[in-house]
């Protein structure tokens, strides 16, 4: 039973990630844990590690900024728009979902 559940979870995880990855313009998706260690990624290793480390720090900083201003507030979403792509970070207590998209132009 436990096996089934875990498989179910895994299937769900796969399905969600696949759905996100299949959006138009999405370059890469990755799931990172609270310490910045990547769990699941669609990019190559070096880029994944780089993105994970840097964005994890940035998310922590952003979150602390928001909470410093208003302690009852919390960070829900972080979008970084650059010339070439847009990086979207969805933070959580334990994980981080990072999606890199090339917006249509």
């Amino acid at each position, binding site marked *: 039973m436990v096996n089934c559940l875990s498989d179910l979870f895994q299937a769900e995880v796969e399905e969600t990630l696949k759905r996100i990855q299949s959006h138009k313009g999405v370059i890469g998706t990755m799931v990172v844990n609270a310490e910045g260690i990547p769990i699941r990624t669609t990019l190559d290793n070096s880029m994944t590690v780089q993105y994970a480390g840097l964005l994890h720090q940035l998310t922590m900083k952003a979150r602390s900024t928001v909470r410093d201003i208003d302690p009852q507030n919390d960070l829900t979403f972080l979008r970084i728009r650059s010339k070439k792509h*847009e990086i979207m970070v969805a933070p959580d207590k334990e994980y981080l979902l990072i999606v890199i998209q090339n917006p249509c132009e």
Partner: protein
Amino acid sequence: MAPKPQKRKISKRGKNKITLPVSEEAEPINMESMGHPEIYPLVLTTKTQEIFNCRVDEDITDEQPYKLIRKEDIFADFVNRAAVSDFYPVKKIIQEYPGDELLLVYDKDFRYGLNFYLIGTEEGKENYLNPLEVPEEQEEYKEHIPEDLYVYKPPVSKPWVSLGSEKEIDEETVKESTKQITYMISRKRSEFGAPIKFSDQNASSVKDAYIECTAYPDKNFTLKQLERDVGMQVVPQIKDISTQTRWTYPQNATTQYHPREFSEEEKKTLEQSKTLTDFLNNVSMSVEIALQQNEIMNVFIDDWKRLAEEEGTFGDKTDTHLKEYQSFTDLHSPTEKMITCVSWHPVIFGLIAVSVAVRLSFEERVHFSGKLLLQPSLILFWSFSDPIHPQLMLESPDDIFCFEFCPSDPNIIAGGCINGQIVMWDITTHADRIENIKVGGSRSKKVTLKPLFLLEPESNKEVMYIRHCAVSSIENGHRKVITDIHWLSDTFEINRLGSVFENRSGISCQLATCSADCTICFWDIRPQKALTPQPTEKKKEESIEIPFDVPSTFLHLDLSWKPFSKIRLSKGETTLDHCPTKISLSDDTLLYKEQDKAAAQDKAVKAGEARPYQNLEEGLANHLEPIDDFCTKFFVGTEEGEVIYTDWKMERDPETGRFMRTRLWAAEWRNVNSVIKDEMAFSTPTAKKPVSLYTVHDGAVHTVQRSPFYHDIILTVGGWNVAIWKEGVMSCFPELFLPHFLNLSAKQQFIAIADYFGTLHILEIPWTLSHPSTNEVSSIHYYFEREVKHLEYVEQRKKIREQEKKDMKLEIEKKKVKMHQKSKEQMEAELKMEYESYLELERNVLVNLGLIKVKETMSYVEMV
């Protein structure tokens, strides 16, 4: 008035008496000081006392110490004794006394200082006599008595009573404290005046030689200073202490680390955890919203920027025609010539090279072959500055059909002849002539047209004939006309087996040619290691004399040049081969980036060499690295109007173990919408099966060229239409001729077009066509992508259609079978099935129409 007798005197009176006679006018002394102003003390002598009968103890007793004396008596006394009279001092009082009798009182006790006194006033007298009867009576009594007597008593010396005055005097006097001592010193007289000798002597050496008075602290004079003025300042207590401690210097330390990563098992366990699932479920919604936002609209677009499409344009915008700029014609040749190949000089602007050939058909060529040998075949260099005279003329043994400038060194030109030979020229010595050419520059033109017979290489000053430096070997090269020649890029080279190597020499050293004998040959301009000794040919070489003005760059190749690799384009089962007319190579140098740097460095090293083409032998000795992922495919256009996409690489055939070209299936597509036909073919060791083959053009393929903007877009021109190909996609887009394909030797704003009659026209492209609008690149790109997708879709649709057809057939058959067995349930089941199949069909149709894509399920359906 009689003067009254004077009374006894007192000692003090005696002084007064002496002094009195000096000044008669002086006031008599009265006892005013004692409170009795009327009492005047007198001293009466005994004689006076006798006169006036006031003798003491006789007339004046204690009972009656007073006596009344008549004024006349005093006056008579005055007359008698004048100044000696005792009453003289009070004479004035007596004169002024209003009464007749004056009272004289004997002062026994010397109360008023003298022995008698006189009362000067009447009322005094009255007071003395009357109110105080007892004392006054006594006084009167006394007065009377002593009035008569006066006794002069001289002052009696009393013993001196010390009143302390001697002490003062003692103090004031100066006395010698010590007794004075007298010295008497004597000396012999002879010693006086003797000469004296003085000498120095140490004082301490001789005892008692000197006497000193040493100073000693005298206690009498030492004063203990009990009070002192001292300035004080209060400061806080400060302590300076230093100690030696161990100070750790901050140092920069670097750590080599590798990122933390999860192992595979850990990843798996994490993936299977519920927390991750929940997280993703929560988060995916917002992420998808964000993604869709981006898909819908780009919020950061600057609308103003997008409005402005072009910058200021020069010239007329609406002008879209090509204007003729200049035209060049060779006036010197006797026969009519046609231009076979046109090429701009890669470096020098305004210089164009044209190869001319005789305009004859094959039979005529054969017929006139003798004549033709006499006339040189030329490549002419035209410059804009001189439309009549070509700048350079390159001579070749036979008509050149195609030529190309070497990309590494524009002074090296390779050309393909009509007889199958490759001809090489090196015009480095004349490079300075053509470099100084300026477009439209007013050079001193020698307008004189020279007649034909003067066209000798020596007499013509402006135009120079340049002889070729090398030709390929006739036996080993192509047998028919070389239709196209290309230099391979300087970044790679190919070996005999077709594998690609990194080109270390930094220069283009290989050529690819295709000819009408259905072969594609690869040539290397470097001296090849002779595999088999050919002494006979060498001897031939030595015997040939080389003209003096020909550079010896390619001497090693002359007449012995062989291609190192040949590709035969065979059509498979039939013996007819494809006759290639043009090839287009991938000039992709972006496939390998790491080696680019190495190549650049090599090039930099080589740039130091003045003439790299002289040292071609070195190139072969270098160890070359093979490049694996190089694209070894290229396009070939054939005479039949086909476009072949083929590969020059040879691979081991797994079955036969021999090296052969890869066996790939080819697709032949007659029209755009024709059916795909697969072809499999075996290959011979040197035969090559094309990767893909497309027949599009109605006539011979004239040009195959790559787009300068997109590396994988190729334009082919042939017959009556133009096709655009994308590498990797087995299809073609029979689309419009887009203005940004500047082919046909276009450079800058000019297109050079050669016509059949030997004239070269240079046309100027108007501004609008030559400059892409801002969106053009991206829009074209997008357009191509759309087209690719469209074609993919078409393919898919074909498949689906086929599938549908099969399904339909099956169903019809099924229906036929199940026709007789029908019950209600079965009917219903059948209806259900039919409905389901209908749904499926509908879905498929929708997919085909593009409304639903197969992969994306949820989002798009929702959107729709």
